[in-house]
C-alpha cells in the first residue's frame, strides 16, 4: 500500500489526526466535517478500467458499483488440514489442493455479486477524475483544480501528477499497451469455452467486477444498490487457463454464469467491508449544507437562476424543474408511490428542441450523479429491451435500459416519435415506461414469470403535445425565450448545487396538525370549485408542497410554502389553458 504513512495499529489516534489535518489542509471548514472519515478510505486505490493494469493482485482495492446481478452462493473449502495445520482459503480465489486434503476440510459459503459501474454515471461523479468536460465550464477556478489534484493524490496510479493532461495521456497509452498484453490470454480463455460471444459486451471504459461477499446477511445488499466495496483484488492468470479442463461430470453442472465472465476480463474482489452509497458520496467537494441555514436559500436562489437561464428565462419551468430534481419516492402505499414528481415539458417543436434539448440534458447531467437519456423513436422502442431479462443459457440477468439505481434521472425525448407500427417488443416497452411513470416499478422478465422491482427514477419528458403514452405528474407547456449566448457556470457553484440536491432530496419531512387542517380545507375548497380535481391532483399538490418546503431546507410544511405551491399550480393551469 502506497500512501499509508501512518500506523493504524501502533498509533491509531495519530492516524486519525493526520487524516483530519490533511482534510483541513484541503480547506474544509472544521465545523462541517463531523461524521466523516476525512478521506481515510480514499487512500485505498480505486478499481476501474484505467487503474486495473496498475493494481497488484491480492492488494486492497476499492470498487464502486451497482449490483447488477446476483450469482448465487459459492461453496468453497473454507479451511483444510494441511499436514497437521489448518489453513484457510477465505478471501482467496481458487486454490489448488491435493484431493487427499479434502478429507479434513470445512466447507464454507460466500455470495457472489456481479457489479457494474453505475449506469448513467456522469463523468464528474466518477471517483477520482472530477474533470468536468462540459463545454460551458470554461471558467474553472484554479482553486477547484487544485483540490481535484489533492483528491486523487493518494492514488498510487497517479505516479506523477505534475500535469493532469499528461497523466491522462499516459494512462491511455498504458491502457492500450495493456490490452495488447491481454490479448493472448483472452484467446486462451475464450477459445476454450467457445463462448466468446457470451462475454458481456463491456463498455471500453466501464469495468464490471465479481464481488465475493463473506458473512453478510442477505437483506443488506439488494439488487441495484450502489455499494462501495473494499476488499482484496484477486487476479489469477491460472484461473483463466483452467476453464478448459473441467471434467466430464461437471460438464453440465457448471453452466455457471462465471464461465462467461473470464477472470481476465472481470476481476474478482473479495469484499472485506462494504458500504451503501448515496448520491452524497459521489460529490467531490465536502460541502455540507445544514438544513435551515441561511446558505440554503442562497444556493437555492442561484440554482433557480441557473435553471431559469438554461430554460430560456422560463421561470415557472425552472421552478418545476427544481422540484422535479428534488423528487423521489419516499413511501409506497399499495400501488401508489408517494413522492415522485415526473415532469412533462410540452411545446417542444423542432426549433426549441435544437436549442434547448441538449442544454437541458447537459444541465441535468451536471447536477445529478446518474442521468440517462432515451430518444423515443419507433425503431428504438421496437429494438431495445428496456427491462432486464434473465438469460437462462448463461444464467445471467441481462441488463435492460431501465435497470437503474435509485435516484437516476431519465430524460425521455418524445419529440422524435413518428407515426409507425410498434411490434410486440415496442408495445411491451411502452407498457414498461408507463408502469415506471405510474407506480415507479419495473417488471424484470424471468421468462416464466415477471418480477416486479421497485424503482425510483426521476423522469423528464420532452414532447410536443401532452404525452399520452407517458403519463407524467406535471404537464407544463414550455415558454422559452432565445437564450443568451454564453452561460458560464462557476465550478464552486456547481458543487454547491449538487450538494444541495443530494442533501435535500433525502430530507425527512412532516406536517403539523394545524397546517394539515389548512391544507385539507384548501383541497376541499379547490374540489368544490372544480369538480374535475381528483386524487391524483391532490397528490401532486401535496408532493409539490413537500418539495417546495424541502427546497428551502425546511422539514415542516409552512403556510408560506403552501401558498407558493398554490401559486405555482395556478400559473401552471393558466398556462395550460392558454
Amino acid at each position, binding site marked *: 500500500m502506497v500512501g499509508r504513512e501512518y500506523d493504524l495499529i501502533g498509533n491509531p489516534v495519530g492516524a486519525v489526526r493526520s487524516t483530519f489535518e490533511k482534510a483541513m489542509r484541503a480547506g474544509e471548514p472544521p465545523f462541517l466535517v463531523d461524521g466523516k472519515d476525512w478521506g481515510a478510505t480514499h487512500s485505498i486505490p480505486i478499481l476501474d478500467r484505467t487503474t486495473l493494469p496498475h493494481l497488484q493482485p491480492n492488494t486492497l482495492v476499492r470498487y464502486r458499483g451497482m449490483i447488477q446481478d446476483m450469482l448465487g*452462493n459459492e461453496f468453497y473449502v473454507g479451511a483444510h488440514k494441511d499436514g497437521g495445520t489448518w489453513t484457510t*482459503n477465505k478471501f482467496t480465489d*481458487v486454490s489448488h489442493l491435493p484431493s487427499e486434503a479434502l478429507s479434513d476440510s470445512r466447507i464454507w459459503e460466500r455470495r457472489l455479486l456481479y457489479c457494474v459501474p453505475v449506469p448513467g454515471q456522469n463523468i464528474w461523479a466518477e471517483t477520482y477524475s472530477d474533470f468536468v468536460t462540459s463545454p460551458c465550464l470554461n471558467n474553472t477556478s484554479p482553486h477547484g483544480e487544485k483540490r481535484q489534484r489533492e483528491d486523487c493524490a493518494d492514488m498510487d496510479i497517479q505516479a506523477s501528477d505534475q500535469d493532469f493532461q499528461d497523466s491522462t495521456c499516459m494512462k491511455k497509452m498504458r491502457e492500450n499497451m495493456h490490452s495488447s498484453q491481454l490479448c493472448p490470454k483472452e484467446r486462451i480463455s475464450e477459445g476454450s469455452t467457445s463462448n466468446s460471444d457470451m462475454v458481456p459486451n463491456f463498455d471500453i471504459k466501464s469495468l464490471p467486477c465479481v464481488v465475493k461477499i463473506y458473512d453478510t446477511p442477505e437483506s443488506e445488499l439488494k439488487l441495484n444498490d450502489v455499494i462501495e466495496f473494499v476488499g482484496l483484488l484477486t487476479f489469477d492468470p491460472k484461473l483463466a487457463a483452467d476453464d478448459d479442463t473441467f471434467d466430464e461430470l461437471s460438464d453440465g453442472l457448471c453452466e455457471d454464469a462465471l464461465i462467461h465472465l473470464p477472470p481476465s476480463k472481470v476481476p474478482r474482489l473479495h469484499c472485506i467491508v462494504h458500504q451503501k452509497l448515496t448520491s452524497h458520496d459521489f460529490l467531490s467537494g465536502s460541502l455540507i449544507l445544514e438544513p435551515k441555514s441561511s446558505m440554503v436559500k442562497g444556493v437555492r436562489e442561484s440554482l433557480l437562476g441557473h435553471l431559469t437561464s438554461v430554460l430560456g428565462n422560463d421561470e415557472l419551468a425552472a421552478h418545476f424543474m427544481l422540484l422535479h430534481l428534488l423528487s423521489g419516492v419516499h413511501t409506497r402505499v399499495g400501488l401508489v408511490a408517494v*413522492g415522485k414528481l415526473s415532469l412533462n415539458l410540452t411545446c417542444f417543436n423542432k426549433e426549441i428542441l435544437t436549442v434547448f434539448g441538449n442544454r437541458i440534458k447537459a444541465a441535468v447531467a451536471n447536477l445529478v450523479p446518474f442521468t440517462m437519456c432515451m430518444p423515443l423513436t419507433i425503431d428504438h422502442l421496437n429494438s431495445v429491451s428496456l427491462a432486464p431479462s434473465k438469460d437462462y443459457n448463461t444464467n445471467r440477468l441481462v441488463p435492460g435500459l431501465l435497470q437503474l439505481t435509485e435516484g437516476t434521472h431519465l430524460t425521455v425525448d418524445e419529440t422524435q416519435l413518428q407515426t409507425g407500427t410498434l411490434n410486440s417488443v415496442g408495445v411491451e416497452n411502452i407498457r414498461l415506461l408507463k408502469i415506471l411513470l405510474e407506480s415507479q416499478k419495473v417488471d424484470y422478465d424471468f421468462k416464466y414469470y415477471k418480477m416486479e422491482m421497485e424503482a425510483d427514477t426521476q423522469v423528464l419528458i420532452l414532447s410536443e403535445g401532452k404525452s399520452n403514452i407517458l403519463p407524467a405528474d406535471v404537464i407544463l407547456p414550455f415558454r422559452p425565450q432565445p437564450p443568451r449566448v454564453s452561460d458560464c457556470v462557476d465550478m464552486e457553484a456547481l458543487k454547491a448545487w449538487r450538494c444541495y440536491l443530494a442533501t435535500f432530496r433525502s430530507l425527512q419531512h412532516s406536517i403539523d396538525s394545524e397546517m394539515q387542517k389548512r391544507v385539507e380545507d384548501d383541497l376541499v375548497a379547490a374540489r368544490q370549485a372544480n369538480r374535475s380535481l381528483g386524487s391524483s391532483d391532490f397528490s401532486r399538490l401535496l408532493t409539490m*408542497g413537500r418539495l417546495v418546503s424541502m427546497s428551502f431546507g425546511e422539514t415542516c410544511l409552512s403556510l408560506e410554502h403552501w401558498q407558493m405551491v398554490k401559486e405555482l399550480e395556478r400559473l401552471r393551469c393558466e398556462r395550460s389553458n392558454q
Partner: protein
Amino acid sequence: MASDSSPANNHDGPSSPDDDSMSSPIGNTFSSPGNPRRRGRRSSVATPPSRRSSRFATPEPTPTPVTRTNRRRRRSPDPVTTPIAATPSSADEAPPSSDGGEFGHPDEAPPMFVWGTNISVQDVNAAILRFLRNFRGRDDASVEGKYMMAIHHVIEIQGDSLEVDAHHVFDYDNDLYNKMVRYPLEVLAIFDIVLMDMVSRINPLFEKHIQARIFNLKTSTTMRNLNPSDIEKMVSLKGMIIRCSSIIPEIREAMFRCLVCGYFSEPIVVDRGRISEPTTCGKQECLAKNSMTLVHNRCRFADKQVVRLQETPDEIPDGGTPHTVSLLMHDKLVDAGKPGDRVEVTGIYRAMTVRIGSSQRTVKSLFKTYIDCLHLKKTDKSRMNAEDPMEVENGASTNDEDITHDYEDKVEKLKELSRKPDIYERLTKSLAPNIWELDDVKKGLLCQLFGGSALTLQSGASFRGDINILLVGDPGTSKSQLLTYIHKLSPRGIYTSGRGSSAVGLTAYVAKDPESGETVLESGALVLSDKGICCIDEFDKMSENARSMLHEVMEQQTVSIAKAGIIASLNARTSVLACANPSGSRYNPRLSVIDNIHLPPTLLSRFDLIYLILDKADEQTDRRLAKHIVGLHFEDTENSEQDVIDLPTLTAYVSYARKNIHPELSDEAAEELTRGYVEMRRRGNFPGSSKKVITATPRQIESLIRLSEALARIRFSELVEKKDVVEAFRLLEVAMQQSATDHATGTIDMDLITTGVSASERMRRESLVSLTRSIIMEKMQIGGPSIRPLELLEELKKQSSGAEYHLSDLRNALSTLASEGFVVIHGDSVKRV
C-alpha cells in the same frame, strides 16, 4: 421411538407368526434401551472395527464424485451378478452378506457402523425391514403391510423403483427417518439392499434392481437456505425448472476388444468416474500390448440429465434475484419435468470438487453443488391459480390423491378465513384497498368475482352464472382503477378500452393465413376471457357495431361467427365489467340513465348491477379524500391498512371458491326470494297511484339468484341462506336506487332502463298530448289559419294551472299529433288538417 414401534409389533403379532419371530427380537433391541445387547453395540461405537473405517474412509467424508460413482454402481441394475458378488471390495456390500444371517440369528453378526457415525448397519437394516413389512396406513386393516403390497405390485409391473413416503417412515420409526435424512447415502444403500433381498425372496427370478424413491419429507427447505451443513443430507425443495440438458449417456460398464486377436475383455465397471483401460490383451495366447479398444455397442450406458431449478417468485425476498440449483436426474427421472414446470424435488444435496486436468490428483478449492435427485413431483396441482381456476363445471374432478399437504394447508387456511364472521366485510375491505369508499360497488364486484352457478337444463336451455356489472360515473371517481384492480385479481381477465376495440377485436376474427392461404379463427378479448372477467373501459365510447356484438355474449355466452368458410360458435362464458362516462361527461341527474349513458336499453338490461358512481359535491366526502391523501403523504400509513387480505390470498380464496363451492338455494332462501320479488313488483303500485310502474323484471330475479349464490360462495357455504338473499336484494336495490330512480316520482322504475322512458314520464307526455289535442280541437278549425306553438303554450298554461310545461315538451306532443295526422307542422306554425 419406543411407542412408535411397539404398537406395530403388537399389531404384527397375530397377523403372521413368521414375521413375528423375526421382528420382535429386533424390535426389542431397538426400543428398549435397557437391553444389554443394545448397550453392547453402543459401546463399540467408539472403536469401530478398523476394517470398516478404512473402507469408508475414502469416499464418505469428501463429497467427491468418487462417492457418487460408487453409489451409482451399487444401485445400478445388474442382471448378471448381485453387487455382493460383483464388487466385494466395495464398502457397503458388507451388510448384505451379513444380511442373510441377520434374519435368522441377529446376534451373531458383528456390529458394523457407518463410518464416523453411530449408525449400526444392522440396526438400520432391521429397521427398514420392519418398516417395509409392517407399515400400514392409518385405517388400513389389510393383512399385508402397505409397502409389501407395493413391492408385489412393482414386481408385477416389472418396475424398477418403489416410492416411499417419508411421512410413513417418520410415523413408523422416527429414528430411522432421522438417520435417513442425515445419512441418506448410507441408509438408502441399505434400503436398496433390503429391497433387493426381499424381492429375491418373493420372486427369485426377478432380475431387476428396485430402488427406493423417497418423497414427501417432513420439512422442506428453500433454495436460499441451502448451506454447507446441508451437504450430503436429504433435502426437499420447491422450484421451477428452467432448463433441461439433453440426455447424456453415461457409461456404466465398458467392453474392450483386442485389435490383434479379437478377444473381448470382461465388462469393466466404471470406478470413480473412470474406466481403466486394460493395457494388455487378456488372452493368454495373445497378450498384445495397447491393443484394446472400446466397443461402444457392447458397453452399458445409463441416462443422465442435468436440470436447473430456480426459486419460485414467492420465495424471493425484496431486492433479490432468484437462486438456482442444478439437479442430476438418472434413469427414469430423465425428462420427468420440462422447463416451466413447478416441481417439488427430493434428493441429496451434494457438493463436488472440480478436478484440474484429468490425471492430476489436485482439486480446486471450489465446489460445484447439485442435488442428486431421488424423486420429482410436479406441484402444479397445488398452485392455487392453476391452469383453469375459473373452471366451475368440472371442478370436483381433480383427483384428491395428488393434492399435497401444502395444498391442504393452504386450503385449511382459506377455510379458516372463510369461517370468520366478518369475512364478507373483510374481503370488501381488501378489494382495492387504496380506492376510497364505494363499499357497495366493491361488494358487487366481489360477487362478480365469485360468480353464481351456471345452470344447464336438460332441455338445453342454459342460465349463465356470470354476473355483469356496469359502472357509470363521473370522471375521476376511480372507475378505471377498480377495473384494473379486478383485471389483476381475476385469473383470466382481459382489459380493453372501448375506444380502441372493434367488434372483431372483442369477439373473434377470421383471417387468411398469408402463407398457407387457410382461414384461421383468431379469438378476441371476449373469447379469450372465457371463464374470466372481461373488463371494458370507456364502454360508452365503443362503436355501435362493437356493442351490438355484446348482446349475444352477455346472455347466451357464446360468440357466433359466420364468415366465408367458417361458421362457428365460440364459448365466451365471461363476466363483463364495463365502465362508462355519462354522455355529457358529467352525470346529469335530471336525465334518465339511458340519456346519460347513451347505451341501448337492450344491452343495459343485460347488466345485473348498474352502479352509478356519482361524484356528489359533498364536502364531507371531499374532506375525507383530502385527509386520506394528506395522510398518505405526510404520515406513516401503516395503520390505515390493517386487516387487509393480501392479493395472492385473495386470488387463492376466489379461485378456490369458484372451483370447489357450488351453492344451492335452500328452501328458506327460495321462499325469501319469491317473497322479495313479489314485494318489489308490488312496490311500484303505491297506494293512491294509478300509474303503472314496473319495479322488477324476470331478469332481475335471475340476477338475484346469481348474486345470492355468489354471496354464499364468499362464505364457502354450499347452501344459499336467507341472509344471502336479503343481501342480494340490498345490493340490487342499492344499485337500482341509484340507477333506476325515476326522478319524477322517486320510485324504482325498471322501465327507465328497459325503454329509457319512465312510466310517470310517459304518463305526463300522454296527458300533454291529449291536452294539446283538446286545445287544438277547441281553438282551430280544419284548414283554418295556422297557429304558433308559443301561443299554444300560453293556452296550455292557462288551462292547466300548476303544471309546468316547456316549449320542448309541447313540440314533442305536437310531433306526436303530427304523426297521427292530426296537425301539420310547417316551420314555426301549426295547422290543423
